[in-house]
């Protein structure tokens, strides 16, 4: 017998239960304040610190459960595509699977649950379009020197969303953007962390700030007025078919029905970056610096570009330097990599001259052959004469390589694969630097900027393949970085190269991986925001809207018993279609409960509320208000503007701190929802698992329960 069959959907749905309990593990990763977890293995003393859903699932062994496997697969797929939204997916998958389970317990047919849940989430996705904020020409207008670290930021006015306490942003470094060979860096000044708003703050806090906000509000208005000429209407925004917004003749988008005419858009890179940082300002600073660098290069290359600038993540690389203090993190134009300390003197010699470069796509070893070359085993070489060759074939090959390098006067060899050690040594002696394991994107960047043509074998090198004008320098003085004997970082760059390396440093080695993850998360968030030219209002605003929207939908269908929306059920002739209205309110209610749990987890994580109960009452209070106001999205926008102008941060006595808006990228967020829902529905619709390829002996007797053999 090699196949077994187990029903997992008798009375209680085991699959859904498993899903919600797996998802519970990722609860603390939600929101800007994440608590790390240690994953320790039972038998050995290894442990890993994880702080994201992807890394958590990566380090768990879920092979025993199909649902766990599917969950892992879904979170990975989300991470690979967007690098963000994994924790949201994990949490919602859990929340909605308990929602689905509860519906089943109420006796609602599986098909109806699936259909209404899909309808509900679809409706939410349409609804949140009203909280989209257009993003355009964030680089377009003057003032390009302003950065998150607030180097030249006037205190009030032009950067209304972030006040840097005086003295904290004082560490400055002279930047010379035109000289690409100089490493650019942005220090992370030790600054008071700005606490992002958790959708809107507790009412008590809001009241406290009313008086103080008057001055700020006026300054905010003068500011927006002075900049209106730069606004370009986003085509995305026009397509978003919501009647709530109209565009005024002067170019402003105004909220039509709202009591206070308040404009919503994002035209400032700092505002956008801070909003997308989700509390991780130091990482976002690096991303922002990278974006500015890339923008400058793009404008130099193509003059005034007509297409909106998009952060090209494929031309950003990271170089992790564990053991170096965190303050050394920075972004540089060019390629930063670690080379052995033995080439120290060589680099010093190469430092002050442009060198010629060769790019090798394969390995640089004697035995290397290109992919797809099958070496015949049965070929024997014999000596015809008594003349013995002096050198081994390896040495002959090495000398041939050196000959080629000398002939074309090449001092730098970038190799995609591995490099023969003896050759590296020989090259160092003849003042040539060989760098191995270079990524293909880096090769391409050098090919473009230095005019080199990548080749597979060194014998292919001709004058046309050699690139020139490359500079090699030590990345910072070795004393500064200090304490590293396994290698030292060098910066390889060339005029006009479209390549940026983010050097990530941390004195705690265990943190470096999380730091790299966070960097990519921020980079992709900014990338998506610029690419889509829109962001969502974050900090729980969209989730709150979904919650209120579903509550209203549930109430409406309860009152009207409408038959209209049955379009989601494929088979309209089935009795399920006609019984749908009877079940819809209950299912929508459970779905909304999922959002509520999301919001309260968010609030508890950020300590906005200390207890679940506190969060519950707070959320319910606002849901009531929103429903009462007639239009939840208008209510949210109003609360948001209140927050932006009225918050008084009591932590800093005597100092006003504007709380920046929180933004989220649109497609990654919505896709995370859809993926979570798809996963839940996939599990919900499954009634049994079939285990193939097993013998009787391989199944433990305790697992045998409920198995049927074919």
């Amino acid at each position, binding site marked *: 017998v*090699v*196949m077994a*069959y187990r029903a997992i959907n008798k009375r209680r749905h085991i699959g859904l239960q498993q899903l919600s309990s797996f998802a519970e593990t990722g609860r603390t990763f939600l929101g800007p304040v994440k608590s790390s977890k240690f994953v320790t293995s039972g038998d050995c003393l290894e442990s890993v610190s994880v702080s994201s859903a992807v890394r958590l699932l990566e380090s768990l062994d879920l*092979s025993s459960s*199909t649902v766990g*496997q*599917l969950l892992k*697969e*879904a979170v990975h*797929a989300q991470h*690979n*595509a967007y690098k963000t939204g994994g924790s949201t997916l994990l949490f919602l998958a859990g929340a909605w699977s308990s929602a689905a389970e509860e519906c089943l317990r109420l006796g609602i*047919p*599986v*098909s109806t649950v699936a259909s209404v849940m899909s309808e509900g989430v*679809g409706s939410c996705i349409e609804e949140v379009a009203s909280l989209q904020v257009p993003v355009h020409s964030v680089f377009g207008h003057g003032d390009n020197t302003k950065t998150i670290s607030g180097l030249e930021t006037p205190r009030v006015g032009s950067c209304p969303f972030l006040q840097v306490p005086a003295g904290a942003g004082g560490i400055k470094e002279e930047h010379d953007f035109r000289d690409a060979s100089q490493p650019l860096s942005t220090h992370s000044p030790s600054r008071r962390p700005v606490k992002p708003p958790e959708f809107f703050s507790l009412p008590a806090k809001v009241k406290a700030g009313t008086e103080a906000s008057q001055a700020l509000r006026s300054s905010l208005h003068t500011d927006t007025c002075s900049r209106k000429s730069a606004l370009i209407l986003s085509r995305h925004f026009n397509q978003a078919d919501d009647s709530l917004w109209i565009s005024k003749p002067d170019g402003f988008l105004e909220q039509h029905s709202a009591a206070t005419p308040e404009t919503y858009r994002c035209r400032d890179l700092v505002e956008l970056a801070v909003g997308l940082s989700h509390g991780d300002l130091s990482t976002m600073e690096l991303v922002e610096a990278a974006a500015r660098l890339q923008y400058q290069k793009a404008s130099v290359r193509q003059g005034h570009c007509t297409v909106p600038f998009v952060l090209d993540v494929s031309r950003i690389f990271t170089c992790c330097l564990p053991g170096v203090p965190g303050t050394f993190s920075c972004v540089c134009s060019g390629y930063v990599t670690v080379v052995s300390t033995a080439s120290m003197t060589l680099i010093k010699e190469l430092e002050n001259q442009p060198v010629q470069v060769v790019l090798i*796509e394969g390995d640089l070893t004697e035995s290397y052959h*290109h992919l*797809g*070359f*099958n*070496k*015949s085993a*049965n*070929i*024997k*070489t*014999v*000596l*015809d004469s008594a003349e013995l*060759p002096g050198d081994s074939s390896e040495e002959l090959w090495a000398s041939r390589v050196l000959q080629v390098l000398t002939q074309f006067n090449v001092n730098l060899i970038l190799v995609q694969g591995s490099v023969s050690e003896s050759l590296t040594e020989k090259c160092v002696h003849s003042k040539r630097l060989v760098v191995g394991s270079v990524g293909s994107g880096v*090769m391409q960047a050098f090919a473009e900027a230095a005019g080199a043509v990548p*080749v597979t*074998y060194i*014998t292919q090198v001709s004058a046309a393949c050699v690139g020139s004008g490359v500079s090699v320098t030590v990345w910072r003085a070795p004393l500064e970085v200090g304490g590293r004997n396994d290698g030292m970082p060098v910066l390889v760059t060339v005029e006009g190269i479209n390549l940026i390396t983010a050097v990530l440093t941390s004195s705690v080695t265990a943190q470096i991986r999380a730091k790299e993850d966070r960097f990519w998360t921020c980079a992709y968030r900014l990338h998506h925001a610029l690419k889509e030219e829109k962001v969502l209002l974050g900090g729980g605003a969209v989730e709150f809207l979904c919650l209120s929207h579903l509550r209203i939908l549930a109430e409406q269908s309860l009152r009207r018993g409408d038959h209209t929306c049955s*379009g989601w059920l*494929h*088979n*309209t*002739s*089935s*009795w*399920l*279609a*006609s019984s749908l209205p009877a079940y819809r309110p209950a299912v929508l209610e459970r779905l909304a409960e999922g959002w509520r749990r999301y919001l309260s987890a968010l609030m508890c994580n950020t300590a906005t509320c200390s207890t679940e109960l506190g969060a519950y009452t707070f959320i319910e209070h606002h849901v009531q208000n929103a429903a009462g106001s007639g239009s939840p999205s208008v209510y949210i926008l109003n609360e948001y503007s209140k927050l932006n102008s009225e918050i008084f941060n009591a932590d800093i006595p005597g100092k006003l701190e504007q709380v920046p808006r929180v933004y989220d990228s649109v497609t990654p967020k919505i*896709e995370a929802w859809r*993926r979570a829902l*798809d996963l839940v*529905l*996939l599990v919900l*619709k*499954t*009634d049994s*698992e*079939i*285990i*193939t*390829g097993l013998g009787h002996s391989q*199944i433990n007797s305790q697992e045998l329960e409920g198995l049927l053999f*074919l």
Partner: protein
Amino acid sequence: MSRLEAKKPSVCKSEPLTNETVRATLSVLKGVLTSCYGPSGRLKQLHNGLGGYVCTTSQSSALLRNLSVTHPILKILTTSVQNHVSCFSDCGLFTAILCCNLIENVQKIGLTPTTVIKLNKHLLNLCTNYLKSEACGCRIPVDFSSSQILLCLVRSILTSKPACMLTRKEIDHISALILRAFLLTIPENTDDSIILGKSIIVPLKGQRVTDSTVLPGVLIEMSEVQLKRMLPIKKASALKVALFCVSLSGDFADTGEGTVVVSYGMSLENAALDQLLNLGRQLISDHVDLVLCQKVIHPSLKQFLSTHHIIAIDRVGVALMEPLSKVTGTQPIGSIGSVSSSSYGIVKELCSAKFGSKHFFHLIPNEATICSLLLSNRNDTAWDELKLTCQAALHILHLTIKEPWALLGGGCTETHLAAFIRYKARNEPESILTDDGCTQAELQLIAEAFCSALESLAGSLEHDGGEIVTDMKYGHLWSVQGDCPSVVNWPDLLSRCGCGLYSSQEELSWSFLRSTCHPFAPQTCLPHKTVSPTSNLIVDCLTAKLSGLQVAVETANLILDLSYVIEDKN
């Protein structure tokens, strides 16, 4: 020294179907298949229990491929269903469930297998003749001059596969794509025989379903870096193409047994490379613009070609060779020595394309019946299911062009057919029985077993506790909530029949299945009742369903006929 072992005697079991465990496994298998049937069918998670890939499916092709059954009777069943699916791509579950139902029903009767088999054959003939005849009341013509029925056909296939995880909007999108892909495979200029082309499904995983698209010609995937190096393509006119299926990597063909002895200082590799470069020179002098190779091209040859502005694309893969040969209108070159000026083909245009995170070279042919269907879905298991479904739908469209008829779906054909058989068996038994020793009483028994097999198959579409009723005029299927009171206002409770052709407001009368009601002759749909443009019919492919019916009855007959299972234990 070899050791001889005495052979074990073979094991012979008589009357395998009477065995209790065989019956039990058969009913488990039937349970698995029945629970998968139809648009609201339940999914199965197939996995190896060791953390391997989890396949979530409800399709017979995926299920049966992974099921490894041991008993010969189950093997006969799964093999014949798999055979049917490989030829017709659809109606696999229909076939398997019907076969199980027939076996189960007939066993309860207690007639001799010979009689049962004979009568089953008569009834099968009755069905196939009816379904093929002009008088058939459950089939409609497929009009190729409009997309309506064709779209219904595709949409019905997509809705019946819930593991694809498509919303209604997405189903509409994918149906339109499949139809467009199908139309692109029909040649424009036809002589007397039509040779249909091919749609290549290109995976685009991780994107939204609505990002799926269809393009004429062939897409070759490659990395962004590779693509950038080849661009821009300067030539505006048609490109001359050399298509190689032989490896141009510069290694030596298999030298066979024995050893090749080479003297020191000689390099076979260089000799092979010289040959390749000679080939390159020939390609240049023949003004070739594009070199495509199934396997690997030596980097030096690539470099040589690119310095002469020839685009070289290697590692195309065996799957694309046939389409490429069609698109370029040339046979692949199988040997370096045999390149002549006649071995080149032509493509109209070459451009680059980007979908999601993937980059492609797009070969646009002059007039070839090859297209690429870029398919995306959110997760891997749903993508796999969608791919299988799209392949099935394209296949079904190809079958339909040969036999342009569609059967009403949603269970209506089954209940209609059952009503028809009941009526014939009751009123014209002599037309079925052609004097071969079966009595009319026997016919009544088997006809009832046959009809109830069909009806309970239609009832398997229901998974959420609903009931099935049938109307007394057309014999169509209607679905109704499970616990409804016996005296009800039917027209208000029901909305439309299973296939969507009739509405409950048409003065019909209904009865529960399995209730004893008077047999009636189901009416054909009226001529004016042909499909209105707004209606959303559920239809099935006639060819596939007809074959499914035949396979089911014949397999059931074969299994019922088994009297011994002889097993070689060695």
